[in-house]
């Protein structure tokens, strides 16, 4: 059973435009009948008979259940709820949004901003017929801003966001990140069509490299034989400097929770250790089919039956500062946002996208933003040999914490 409430305050064209309040309730029922899985969901909390009937009907055809549900168990104490979130007033949220917009506009007066300040809570209750039971609450607060600057027919897009289980009452860092982007994008620079060294910022990593990694470490992809690293457990596949884990246990992060959607206790799961494939992510059924244990990654995030899904990807920081990476490049690119990168053969690790926000580096200095530029690569080639891993890790979208990555060469095509 999940019930949630969310209050987004939205700004459009630099002005307060919408206040919304959204409440939703739903129940999902998974049954095993004659060994087969049935499943139904509803928002009508009063009509349990219909819910049961629907689940029974689907159980005629469902997959054979290979797992056993958890009995009553104890969960780790993971903080993800802050009472103060709910008590942030609408007036305070409006003030935060106004401040964000004002910060960006004071730097670039003719920019048009959309901003959002959102508070929300979710409560989750899981019970099963083996006596298992889990209850938890979570609070989420987020701030975000996107700016569009139009000069003739040239458009520049900048943006930044932050989220937490605590109220975020100081929008300064988000505003400054946008100012940094605007500053670097002041001039335009041209790029040759040839392989170039590239620094992916945390935002750039999220848009280009994460979707293929998520697919590759999904236990289900592995089970089907469709993951390029499925048979490489314990083998060095990535650069030795690379460490990646899934971690739902960090206090007050939006991806954190005491258990997954099947009531399996949360755990930290190392995925890449020193470049070696360490684990894959599993829910109960997939783990049973693969003859292993659930990693507590059963997620019903798309409304269906639980399926393996990361809670939060954490890439361990390295030793090189962003400035040192830029200084090291004679000619190269910094990629902040790739558009369309996850439209290709994600399973195979390929990505290709238009550089929506990125900067050209010449002789160790960022000289301006690039346009009409495509980059293409394959994450297994790129992450095999990394020049340096950044020392400054950052949260992106609440579900990824990563430093910048400096890669020796990426294919670039430009007009």
């Amino acid at each position: 059973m999940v019930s949630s409430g969310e209050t987004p305050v939205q700004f459009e064209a630099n002005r307060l435009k919408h206040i919304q309040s959204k409440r939703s309730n739903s129940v999902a029922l998974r049954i095993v009948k004659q060994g087969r899985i049935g499943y139904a969901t509803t928002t009508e909390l009063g009509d349990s008979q219909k819910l049961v009937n629907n689940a029974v009907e689907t159980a005629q055809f469902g997959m054979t259940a290979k797992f056993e549900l958890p009995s009553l168990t104890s969960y780790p104490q993971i903080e993800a709820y802050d009472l103060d979130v709910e008590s942030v007033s609408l007036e305070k949220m409006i003030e935060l949004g106004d401040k964000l917009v004002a910060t960006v506009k004071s730097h670039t007066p003719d920019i048009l901003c959309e901003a959002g300040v959102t508070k929300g809570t979710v409560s989750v209750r899981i019970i099963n017929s083996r006596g298992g039971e889990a209850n938890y609450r979570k609070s989420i607060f987020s701030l975000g801003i996107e700016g569009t600057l139009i000069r003739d027919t040239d458009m520049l897009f900048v943006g930044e966001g932050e989220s937490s289980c605590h109220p975020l009452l100081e929008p300064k860092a988000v505003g400054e990140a946008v100012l940094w982007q605007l500053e670097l994008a002041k001039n335009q620079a041209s790029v040759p069509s040839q392989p170039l060294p590239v620094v992916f910022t945390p935002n750039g990593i999220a848009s280009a490299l994460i979707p293929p990694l998520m697919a590759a470490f999904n236990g289900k992809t592995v089970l089907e034989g469709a993951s390029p690293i499925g048979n490489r457990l314990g083998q060095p596949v990535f650069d030795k400097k690379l460490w990646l884990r899934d971690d739902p246990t960090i206090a007050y992060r939006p991806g954190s929770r005491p258990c997954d959607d099947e009531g399996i206790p949360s755990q930290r799961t190392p995925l890449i250790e020193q470049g070696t494939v360490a684990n894959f992510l599993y829910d109960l059924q997939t783990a049973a089919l693969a003859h292993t244990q659930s990693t507590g990654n059963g997620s019903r995030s798309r409304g269906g039956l639980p399926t393996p899904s990361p809670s939060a990807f954490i890439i361990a920081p390295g030793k090189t500062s962003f400035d040192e990476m830029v200084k090291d490049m004679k000619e190269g690119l910094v990629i902040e946002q790739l558009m369309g990168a996850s439209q290709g053969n994600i399973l195979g690790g390929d990505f290709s996208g238009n550089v929506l926000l990125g900067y050209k580096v010449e002789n160790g200095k960022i000289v301006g933003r690039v346009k009409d530029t495509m980059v293409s690569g394959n994450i297994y080639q790129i992450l095999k040999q990394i020049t340096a891993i950044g020392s400054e890790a950052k949260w992106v979208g609440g579900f990824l914490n990563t430093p910048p990555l400096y890669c020796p060469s990426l294919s670039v095509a430009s007009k």
Partner: protein
Amino acid sequence: MPHIEVVGHQLAEALNGYSADYIEAHLEESQSSYITYRGRELESMGRTTAVGGNIRALVRGGWGFTSFNNLDELPGKVELAVKQARLVGSRESKLAAVEPVVDAVPAKIDKNPVAMPLAEKKQLLDEYNDIIWHTPKLQTSIISYGDSHKKAIFLSSSGSYIEQERADITLRLTAVATKGNEVQQTGLSLGSRGDFRLIQGRHQQVEQMAQHAVELLSAPQVKGGEYTVVLDPVLAGVFVHEAFGHLSESDFVYENDRLRQIMTLGKNFGSSELNIVDSAATPGLRGSYKYDDEGVPATKTYLIREGKLVGRLHSRETAAKMKEKPTGNARAINYHYPPIVRMTNTYIEPKSAPFEDIIGGIKEGVYAKNWYGGMTSMEMFTFSAGEAYMIRNGKLAEALRPVVLTGNVFNTLKNIDAIGNDLEMNQGGGCGKGGQMPLPVSNGSPHIRIRHCLIGGR
């Protein structure tokens, strides 16, 4: 829980008793089912029922919105929306005038797909999955089927009361081939406005898709750079949606003075052969309807006619602020969201060029087919092809790995120099905007040729 009709009629009487410039309510009842396969076996099957609604209020130009599953105590929810709107509002409310409508629109399908026996749906998917699994060297398959049937009531403080039903079906099939650590995939997306027959009988297409995944294992990757490209109707449909459709959505434009200057009606965007249309009024497609989610009748809107910008898509608010006519393009994916300006069925009108003529003169180019997806930032857009082939000396040559194409709306449309005679509408897509995804839309085109199109590659 009371039926939404009962709740709707009670609410209709009460909506005028609040101090707001305008209030509307949406109430919805929906049923859906889904079936997925990953690999040889059915992976999951489920049924969902949902009831919910929302209230939207406008006070002095500011919007308040509240959504819920619980239909009790609606007067309190109306008050909350009005209170929120009052906190936002600081200017004058502007909404384009429309006649209040009282109407009931049935789904107009022979058979509700959600109510069909699950065994019948599974039978078809089993057949398609068997075809994929009978393809030599194929590693696995992913199939995702979904259907829904929805009854929605729209009512407003100006006296509209509209009941509309609609059904929707989507089917996405993916074939995955592997060789060593190499993984390649191909996909096929089908859909219909609730008619199950339209996704039946596609066995041959499924077979071709599966075989192509295996072929891709030995296909080379294109060298990145500028090419003359020919797009098939499916991909050209995605192209017109991404490259131009989103820019014609007035909510991007109406409060943006610079963009308004760029998007002046009459501005030249392409050759005199180029006509681009968005039409929810064309019946039977996934983006078709009689009234949008603000109760405005659907229209057929020319966006580009003979190469010139002649229209754009509006909600009541954007139409009023731009002093243009409302087009009935305000849509929400469901009651959790307020309606925003969206496309419906978007297409390039056919002209005369046969396919052979379109590729005939190309010395070296790329023929791109089928879609993975597309995205736009208004000025720039990318869209990706599920299949691609080199064109050499006017003929189709070797298969390529899937390609991602990119362009700039102000140049790329002008670079279209041939438009075919074979319009096809693709019903397999879904559009995302403002966190609302996937919205049922369709898009289409005949074959088109584009000069100087940038393709990513090795």
